[in-house]
């Protein structure tokens, strides 16, 4: 098991009812972690419209997650 700090933004934060939380997980990559948290943020498949950052660096959904990582879950952006 790994310990991951997850941060939720915008709609994801509202749905999860929290800014962040620490989760214990066996997920190997960002996508698996995201799916384990579907009850929190309410989205099945993030690919193509949601983004993820690991330790403040933009990452891909197949990027590995490691014990102690800070994983940021971004719903679709709308700047400008």
């Amino acid at each position, binding site marked *: 098991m790994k310990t991951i700090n997850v941060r939720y933004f*915008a*709609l994801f934060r509202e749905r999860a009812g929290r800014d962040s939380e620490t989760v214990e997980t066996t997920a190997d990559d960002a996508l698996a972690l995201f799916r384990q948290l579907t009850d929190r943020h309410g989205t099945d498949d993030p690919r193509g419209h949601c983004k993820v950052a690991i330790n403040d660096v933009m990452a891909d959904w197949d990027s590995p997650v490691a014990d102690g990582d800070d994983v940021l879950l971004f719903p679709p*952006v709308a700047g400008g």
Partner: protein
Amino acid sequence: MSDSEIMAISATPINTAALRASLADVRAGAIVTFEGWVRNLNEGRDVEALEYEVYAPLAVTEGERIIAEVQRDIPIIAARAVHRSGALALGDCAVWVGVVSPHRDEAFRACRRIIDEIKVRLPIWKKENYSDGESGWVNCERCAAHAHG
């Protein structure tokens, strides 16, 4: 927001005149600026106000990366961008992009590309408050990829 920041997030109104002046350069023959303003209608709904949530650490590094990419591809002199965070009212400037170059073609192309990339790459979310009392996160609710502004 210091004079040297290429990409900034601002919680207070954007000083567009100061930004323009900061790009003054005797080699520059052209400056093109883009501003996104909060308008009263978005996809058919009456907007009364809105709020931008910004994850600033990554918004700044991603914005700097966008401008560096554009400067690598297009021969401009300089570019800067600022995006607002927090609550905005109708007519407020939400984002400012300015580009100076010797000739106008490069400034137009670079400015357009910077704002296009800002809108899809920066971790920024817009929550609109409508006149019917409802509110919603733009793009999020139905994961559409419409253009805004």
